[in-house]
């Protein structure tokens, strides 16, 4: 009869609050430009949410703030306003709203938007994230972990893979590379809705993200650090349902061995 607090919008609110360290460090570094990008992204995200509210009676979500922050931080720079609005709209509508809104989406809308802009405008330069963003991302990961929104296994898997990458001599701790790895992780990879939902799947997704970052850092030398991390985030995100399915297959086969 009594109900707990963790409805969709409570989770979204806590997620937004957890983003505060990352948003603050990024805005301090970017100042006016960053604020403009963030406000533009917010306008696009909530514009579409309003349209879907009126047309399909789909309630808006505070998680749109996280989407807007991710698009503003990670999308290529030097795009005109039309391209930016087009890319953000594609991500928000095709990545989230057509599925019924936040909580029912398969891919993170910001991942879809950034991938769309990255593939659609390959000449546009990727933004450089300052080292304070790495600390901000770490703060976000810690807060979201403390509130049980992010998975320790996913973060642990990524940490293990990246540690091996560092031991192998790859520049994961470089001041220009570390924030580019950590920010997409805090914004996209660990998203509770679109990341793997089984324990083994989360280990797998974390390892996959870290492993792909290491692979791309070693083999894709022409790409910027953020491009490397975003590509890894996109592939890890796409692989999440497969990893879950494999985890469930393993679970069922263990049960069959036990109980026949």
């Amino acid at each position, binding site marked *: *009869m*009594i*109900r*707990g*607090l*963790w*409805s*969709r919008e409570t*989770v*979204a609110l806590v997620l937004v609050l957890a983003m505060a360290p990352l948003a603050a460090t990024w805005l301090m570094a970017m100042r006016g430009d960053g604020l403009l990008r963030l406000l533009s992204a917010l306008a696009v995200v909530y514009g579409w949410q309003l349209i879907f*509210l009126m047309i*399909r*009676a*789909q*309630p808006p979500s505070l998680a749109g703030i996280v989407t807007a922050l991710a698009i503003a931080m990670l999308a290529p720079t030097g795009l005109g306003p039309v391209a930016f609005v087009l890319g953000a709209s594609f991500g928000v509508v095709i990545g989230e709203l057509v599925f*019924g*809104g*936040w*909580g*029912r989406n398969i891919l993170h809308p910001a991942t879809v938007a950034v991938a769309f802009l990255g593939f659609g405008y390959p000449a546009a330069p990727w933004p450089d994230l300052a080292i304070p963003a790495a600390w901000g991302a770490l703060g976000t990961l810690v807060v979201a972990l403390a509130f*049980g*929104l992010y*998975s*320790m296994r996913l973060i642990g898997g990524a940490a293990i893979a990246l540690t091996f990458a560092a031991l192998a001599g790859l520049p994961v701790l470089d001041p220009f590379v570390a924030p580019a790895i950590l920010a997409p992780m805090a914004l996209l990879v660990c998203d*509770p*809705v679109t990341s793997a*939902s*089984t*324990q083994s799947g989360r280990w797998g997704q974390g390892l996959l993200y870290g492993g792909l970052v290491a692979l791309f850092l070693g083999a894709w030398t022409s790409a910027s650090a953020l491009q490397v991390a975003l590509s890894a985030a996109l592939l890890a995100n796409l692989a999440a349902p497969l990893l*879950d399915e494999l*985890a*469930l297959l393993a*679970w*069922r086969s263990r*049960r069959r061995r036990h*109980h026949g």
Partner: protein
Amino acid sequence: MASEEAIGPRAQEGLRPMGTGPAGAGGSAHTETRITAEASIRSPFRGDFRVELLVAPGDVVAQGQPVLRATKAHAFTITAPMPAKVASIDMDRGQRLKSMLFYHEPGAGRHVFDVPDAMDGPVIWRLLANTGLWRAFRQRPGASPAFGDIRPAAILVMAHDTRPGAGRPLDWVRSRGAEIEAGLEALTRLTDGPVLMVRPRGAEVDQRHATGRVTLIDAPDVHPLGLAGPHVLRHAPASFDRPVWDIHIEAVADIGALIRTGMIPATKTVALTGPGMRTPLLQRVQAGADVRELLLGKVVPGNHLVLGGSAIDGAPARWVRWGSHQVTVLMAPPPEKPPHWLRAALSRTARPLPVIPTAGLDRALGGVVPVMPLIRAISAGDTETATALGALSLVEEDLALVDYLTGAEPRIARQLRALIDRAAVEEGVA
């Protein structure tokens, strides 16, 4: 000597939902016996339960005397909860039982059953059917009382309860070792599979010389590991071909008492808890006792919401349900203003509400099953996947914590019920 088994580390996960004041409801020192002036029995099934009456309104019946029997299987009876006069019988035209009301008649005595000497499984089951104690067994899949000629694949004895505000069942049967022994002995003859007893970790169970077929499961004091569901899932998954029963430890002692004395114990222990109580307390009451009378003078001033069960899985109740050992009194929320039309429209069109995975949700079934895939399969009505993930081993109360954590609408527990009903139709067992 009974074998012992501690559940593995993965299955030790759970939560401690906000309690509603059970501190005083753990021990047995303050347990008083209270027989209310009125008591009611209701149909043990959600749906069709056609009966033949053995008494008429105005008849005086002894405690434990059969008052009606099932039309489908005459051996299955329901007995009077107390020495009483039959006040009223509410049935529809198809002879389906709705309720039967009794007025207490202290002089009407207790009914004594003939207990056969030779006690093999079918004989014991027939005895339990004749005495109404068949209702003590809850069958999975489906959460209905065990009914008809069935041999379960396993039986779980619940000597643990971790629902918020629940008492400690082992304390209630501390002095009934001989009856528990006799009851467990009877249980082992009802199944060819294991009899599993779930007890709080480290607690002692006075089962004396209970047979080696009883396996003890030590469960930590976190919810939902005091419910049968996670243990059924882990140790003896249920299916329509292999039903699994669970039973409360006090009911096991009642079966033992029946076998030893021929009489059904007149009372059971109920924890009265919740923020609406002046002090949480334990009482021994008859089955179907009048909740209003039990609470008279014991609640704080104000409007109350009285639930049979705990604060997270209870339902409004006027009588103490058969098999229920808890009554929770909540303060009734003030009447809400109707929401704005847009908000009301949005809340109706967005059903079912999305469920977002959190660390709490991962532990909401004790870590024995991947929770999110199971919830998604139940919400999507994917019977095949939900069955593969163990949905048939669960009942509504097992998912109450999931509903509490997520505020899901419609409740996942209700969706599970619909899914199991659909699976039963598909399997041809409905």
